[in-house]
């Protein structure tokens, strides 16, 4: 009898964890960190080094040396911005029932356009970088919109289309960036000062970190995301399409239009991420040698953030912390790839979530059966 009670207590805990998406997210993240910790122990390193690196990233405090440097906080926020935006790219599409693996490509298009506007746009103080950022957002929107159009008009799977368009964007970016006068195989000439996203007061606040006004762009986007999804007719029709396409169509929602608009807005978020990275963290245009992987990690960000505005913001900060802590881990003899392993595990655990749900259903079914058996036994 006691064991039965203990088991039901345990399952009640599991029930309450799995009841809300938010607690599921916390649960899988904790599980991911636990696995990462075990892995570090298993290879004979000190997991304390990983956590010290994470603390230093979050607070700027170096626990081993007892020093404080605000630059680490600035770098953490800087690393989080493109992740938040790419997470929203994945998340916004997900709310319309689309799986957008294309944030990486949309990011690359944004980055490439931002670099071009930075080099050839009007060098007007305070306007130049804003123009470049807007152009990048529009470019990302177009790249995402293509996917929506292919899906809506030709029923091309958005998963396959976005994977293909990621590589197409990558190779086109390399080709066009190398066409820029005086560009070599790695980089273009330096941007004019007017094209860089200003760092303003952050420069002195965070001891010379790369944190810049891009943070306002990202925060505006989070607000816009929340507003569009939760407070507008458009958002309602997008969510309705995501929940049940046929019902939405029957209810008078133009599903084709919803799919294209949703992918366009999703692409815009990723395009803006490209602009913030290229004009905020670099002083020259890059000929990409590989993916920056913000888009792919954005998938994990959105999954953990449950595709809500606030959730994606928090989850983006979490993954930004992991990314930003990498060099600090490496210097503490922790292989920095453990952060990628944790991200990967978190995504795998989320995919197993339906499994947890099945486990609960099965448990409760068995519990009811047992109760009934006990009742019958009592009556008999």
């Amino acid at each position, binding site marked *: 009898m006691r064991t039965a009670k203990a088991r039901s207590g345990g399952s009640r805990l599991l029930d309450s964890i799995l009841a809300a998406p938010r607690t599921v997210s916390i649960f899988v993240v904790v599980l991911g960190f636990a696995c990462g910790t075990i892995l570090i122990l298993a290879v004979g390193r000190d997991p304390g080094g990983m956590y010290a690196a994470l603390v230093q990233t979050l607070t700027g405090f170096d626990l081993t040396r007892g020093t404080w440097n605000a630059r680490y906080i600035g770098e953490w926020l800087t690393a989080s911005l493109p992740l938040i935006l790419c997470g929203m790219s994945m998340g916004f599409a997900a709310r319309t029932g689309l799986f957008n693996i294309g944030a990486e490509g949309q990011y690359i298009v944004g980055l490439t356009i931002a670099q071009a506007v930075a080099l050839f746009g009007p060098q007007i103080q305070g306007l130049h970088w804003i123009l470049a950022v807007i152009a990048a957002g529009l470019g990302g929107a177009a790249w995402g919109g293509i996917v929506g159009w292919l899906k809506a008009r030709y029923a091309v799977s958005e998963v396959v289309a976005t994977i293909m368009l990621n*590589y197409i964007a990558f190779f086109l970016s*390399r080709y066009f960036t190398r066409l820029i006068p005086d560009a070599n195989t790695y980089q273009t000439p330096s941007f004019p000062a007017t094209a860089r996203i200003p760092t303003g007061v952050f420069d002195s606040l965070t001891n010379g970190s790369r944190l810049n006004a891009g943070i306002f762009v990202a925060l505006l986007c989070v607000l816009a995301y929340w507003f569009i999804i939760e407070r507008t007719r458009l958002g309602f029709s997008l969510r309705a399409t995501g929940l049940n396409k046929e019902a939405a169509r029957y209810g008078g929602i133009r599903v084709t239009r919803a799919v294209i608009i949703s992918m366009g807005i999703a692409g815009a978020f990723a395009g803006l991420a490209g602009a913030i990275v290229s004009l905020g963290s670099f002083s020259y245009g890059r000929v990409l040698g590989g993916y920056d992987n913000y888009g792919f990690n954005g998938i*994990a960000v959105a999954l953990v953030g449950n595709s809500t505005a606030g959730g994606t913001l928090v989850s983006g900060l979490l993954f930004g912390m992991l990314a930003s802590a990498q060099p600090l881990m490496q210097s503490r003899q922790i292989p920095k790839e453990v952060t990628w*392993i944790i991200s990967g*595990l978190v995504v*795998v655990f989320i995919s197993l979530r339906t499994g947890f749900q099945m486990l609960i259903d099965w448990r409760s079914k068995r519990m009811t059966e047992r109760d009934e058996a006990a009742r019958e036994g009592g009556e008999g």
Partner: protein
Amino acid sequence: MNELLGMIPSVLMMVSPILIAAMGGMISERAGIVNIALEGLMGIGAFTAATTHVLLGGEFQATVWVALGTALVAGALISLIHAYASVSLNADQVVSGTGINLLAMGSTVFLAQIIFHQERTEPYKLGMLPGPGGIYATAYIALAVLAASWYVLYRRPFGLRLRACGEHPAAAAAAGIDVRKVRYIAVLVSGALAGLAGACLVLTQTIQYTMYTINGAGFIALAAVSFGRWLPKGVAGAALLFGSAVALAIYMVNIQALRVLPPEFFSVMPYLITIVTLVLFSGKDYAPRAAGQPFEKSGS
């Protein structure tokens, strides 16, 4: 012309891994499970093969074959995660595939750091040696995989069952087929083949594993599955076409007539062709009807 003929061994070297992985992807999708983790599984295979070969001396042809074997096993083992998530738990197949891709990228470089104290495996002295005509054994492995896939899918009862699971799992289950078991086998085979493909790639094209070794080959294989319309000969043709494009992007500098084109022209071809054909063939349903959809047994 001679230059093009001289390229044949290089083209076959590039085509073989793509073809092997694409066969795996095709088998999995024909059983109803989309495997977008091919890229990551190839990375796992390439890392395992390179590590096995180096640790066994890195210069003997015998250990090359051992390395092919370990890579195959490693690919199958990791794909077990995908099988468990997408078959047993009815999870979203794209999510678990994405998770494995992220996991593969991290875990291979992590293990390289632990074993070799650097972000790549130690280079080996000698990879696989080409046979007569400069053609690697990987080309024959690819041919064998192609022939076996076709034979099993179209000439064995198991192949019929597998295809039924991808077209109409409920009907297959009603006919007494264990849908889950068939899907498990299909995913494990695709994992094993992707692992083998990664090994073929690393042992013929380079001297060590780095995080850039696979560089999209798995996604090209995935594209070949769609472009080849889920049929062995179609997928093989697509792999041949796409592999040639990849080879041309690398070796075009040697060919006078092609130098006017940017290398990106060839690099972008596989992806562009796939999208264009998906548009052209839209409306005609070539894809396995139940691919990507979990199968829930009613009444369980």
